[in-house]
């Protein structure tokens, strides 16, 4: 059996999305900046894609900027808010310790440019609170950026409450919704979101297309300078096939959102129940306030990469926050922020599902994974010491 259980990394393009893309390669291939009919047909497609994103986010079309992906949208959001803050003499930014590197590394760059960054601690359930945000806000805070749902452990943050706190304090609020968009309801008005990033390939859209929502009146800074595309705020000939595929995928995901969640949640919970029955295994992140398709566990005494490779040999494509998968010595910053000790964090496994996964895949995984965990523990000198009581169990 071949199981793709890494949908948080990227997804297959849906039939609907591909159908929307196909006419844009060889028929409606014009440049939307061109005045002639082939160009204007492309411009119409661009406008209707923009309208779709606006509608499902409860935003206005002109508040939607297309980018090359979630990373670029994150970079542009942070740089824009920072520039705006700097003009007002406000150079303090609040974020969290478990953001994606597109946020954290941009914040590091901003720190070098003189901004001060407060990264909120992550409570043990993987859900930061609006109170934490409120307590961190200072008179010179220009931006709060908190992700909508975490990409590793899938926990959902209290976005409306954080939005409320920020609105009351008069501080811009950005959320990296790359993992949430298409999976959780988003309403930028009701949730008081000023800026939001999303990426199409996380909801069965194509890779290389992102969206930055920015509330009207928030001036954007260019990350890419050049032509006058996207109201002059994002240069480069628009990737019309990608944008059309992204919009079609987003529309489909939003329309099927409840249905997909109702399908995935019991499968997720069954898998969690089955795998946490393995001794010295712990679920990372709140069991309920998490994405419908996310399972993330730590198994004591084993290391994630070898687990992944053996799963792969059994046809299961999964992910790990283990250091070995990243080439660094430190395991996932998310698991460390969650308070997992290094030796435990090394033994993590992330399984992420979409509506394309089948119930029998869950059964197969419940059969295969415990065996592989046992096999690796058998081989592990760490497990040996744990079992002999020479090393204390940490989970």
């Amino acid at each position, binding site marked *: 059996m071949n199981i793709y259980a890494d949908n948080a990394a990227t997804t297959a393009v849906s039939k609907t999305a591909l159908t929307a893309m196909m006419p844009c390669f060889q028929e409606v291939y014009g440049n939307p900046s061109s005045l002639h009919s082939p160009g204007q047909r492309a411009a119409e497609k661009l406008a209707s894609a923009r309208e779709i994103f606006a509608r499902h986010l409860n935003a206005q079309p002109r508040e939607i900027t297309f980018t090359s992906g979630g990373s670029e949208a994150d970079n542009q959001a942070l740089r824009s808010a920072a520039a705006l803050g700097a003009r007002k003499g406000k150079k303090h930014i609040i974020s969290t310790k478990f953001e994606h590197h597109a946020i954290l590394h941009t914040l590091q760059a901003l720190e070098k440019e003189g901004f001060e960054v407060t990264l909120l601690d992550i409570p043990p359930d993987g859900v930061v609170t609006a109170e934490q945000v409120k307590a961190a806000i200072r008179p010179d805070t220009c931006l709060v950026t908190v992700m909508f749902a975490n990409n590793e452990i899938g926990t959902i943050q209290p976005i409306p409450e954080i939005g409320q706190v920020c609105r009351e304090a008069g501080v811009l609020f950005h959320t990296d919704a790359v993992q949430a968009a298409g999976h959780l309801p988003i309403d930028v008005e009701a949730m008081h979101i000023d800026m939001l990033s999303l990426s199409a390939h996380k909801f069965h859209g194509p890779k290389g297309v992102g969206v930055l929502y920015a509330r009207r009146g928030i001036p954007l800074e260019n990350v890419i300078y050049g032509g006058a595309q996207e109201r002059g705020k994002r240069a480069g000939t628009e990737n019309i096939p990608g944008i059309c595929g992204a919009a079609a995928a987003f529309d489909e995901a939003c329309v099927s959102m409840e249905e997909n969640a109702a399908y995935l949640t019991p499968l997720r919970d069954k898998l969690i129940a089955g795998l946490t029955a393995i001794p010295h295994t712990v679920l990372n992140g709140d069991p309920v306030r998490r994405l419908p398709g996310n399972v993330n566990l730590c198994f004591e005494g084993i*290391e994630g990469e070898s687990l992944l*490779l053996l799963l792969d*040999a059994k046809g299961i494509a999964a992910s790990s926050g*283990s*250091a*070995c998968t990243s080439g660094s010595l430190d*395991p996932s910053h998310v698991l460390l922020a969650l308070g997992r000790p290094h030796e435990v964090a*090394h033994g993590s496994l992330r399984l992420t599902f979409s509506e394309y996964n089948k119930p029998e895949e869950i059964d197969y995984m419940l059969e295969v994974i415990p065996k592989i965990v046992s096999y690796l523990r058998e*081989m*592990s000198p760490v497990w040996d010491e744990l079992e002999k009581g020479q090393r204390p169990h940490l989970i």
Partner: protein
Amino acid sequence: MALYSDKVMDHFQNPRNVGRMEDADGIGEVGNAKCGDIMRMYIKVDPETQIITDVKFNTFGCGSAIATSSMATELIKGKPISEALKLSNKAVVEALDGLPAQKIHCSVLAEEAVRAAVKDYFDRHGIPYGDELKACDGHCDTCGHEHA
């Protein structure tokens, strides 16, 4: 999987000489669980010939940590101790048809696990040895060796 050579994948998926050895003559353990890899190597030595007659390993670590452990045991099994001490991480890497750059440290660990096991054997039998057998202190970043 393109990351690893077929040889690595073979030694990872079918590790040779894996397991505990209850009556080992020397046991070496290197690495650190915090850093994500620990190798423990057991050797059985013929006191007459100083030949390593049996080797076993236990490894906690990534695919290449397991594969390099396995390969290292193969390379020293049946060899005199003097030769085992000459085993370099480079030789392990070559025998595995290469390793990705970020995985070279696993081969270093395998080399050190062998040396640590021999050192333990020397210690137990009162056999003197030089500075070059001072083992890795088990901290990820403080390994002073020069390796390929």
